[in-house]
């Protein structure tokens, strides 16, 4: 009916480029990574979906921000065990029956990220929000882990 511009090479080049840029990101983040957070991520090089994770801390909280576009809130699972925060979940395919995927770069399926927290946190006060595809987890530091000002009296 019409002339079809079939471009298999373009697609192949694409995923290739993606892999390269992922590799670059991975290498970059390996250099920037503090030693304690290396585990759990290395094995995910090139396999599946490994959402980007940022970690912040201030005097009162440890804050974790994860890029999880297109999830349903109820499909995100957050757990805390032995100072290790694990965020996991599953993204469902958006392709309905009868639809034809022309091209897909988006990862569908399960993911799991674990990060060991830099300090002890109060697991009963952890809160999380999910907005614009960004998950924010706030973990209040345990009382004993908070920095304390020590008054020294000079005699």
């Amino acid at each position, binding site marked *: 009916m*019409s002339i*079809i*511009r*079939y*471009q298999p090479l*373009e*697609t192949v080049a694409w995923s290739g480029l*993606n892999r390269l840029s992922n590799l670059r*990101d991975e290498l970059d*983040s390996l250099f*920037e*990574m*503090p030693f304690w*957070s290396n585990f759990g991520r290395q094995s995910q090089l090139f396999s599946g979906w490994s959402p*980007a*994770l*940022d*970690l*912040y*801390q*201030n005097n009162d*909280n440890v*804050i974790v*921000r994860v*890029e*999880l*576009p*297109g*999830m349903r809130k109820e499909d995100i699972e957050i757990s805390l065990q032995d100072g290790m925060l694990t965020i996991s979940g599953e993204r469902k395919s*958006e*392709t*309905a029956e*009868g*639809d*034809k*995927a*022309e*091209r*897909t*770069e*988006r*990862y569908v399926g399960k993911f799991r990220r674990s*990060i060991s927290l*830099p300090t002890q946190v109060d697991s009963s006060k952890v809160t999380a929000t*999910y*907005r*614009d*595809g*960004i998950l924010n987890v706030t973990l209040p530091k345990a009382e004993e882990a908070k920095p304390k000002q020590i008054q020294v009296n000079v005699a």
Partner: protein
Amino acid sequence: MNTLVRENRNANQQRSEQFVTPAASVIEDGDAYLLNVEMPGVNKEGLEISVENNELRIIGRRSLPEIDGTLVHRESRSENFRRTFELDPSIDTSKISAHIDQGILTLRLPKAEQVKPRKITVS
């Protein structure tokens, strides 16, 4: 229809602002194509979508709330998103609609009522 996924990479050069390319998928859904683009941290206000000369250009600017604290570890990119697609002539560009939900931009690109036969001249 196959050109929907063809990209115009040259159009992205020669600009000073740095962008990253968001992951995208194209689904054919009966009388339309659905283009899904992953843009975490982008909301409605940060989107800029334009069609010019059959070129669909999508820019998504992140509006992430500042986090009060020191950064310990970072994997996310700070650049905004941009991606350009060449649209197939069979798409009715006047009827493109878009919405964004949880960082996924969905564009619905309806096929034209009747795709006019194209004239091919032999030189």
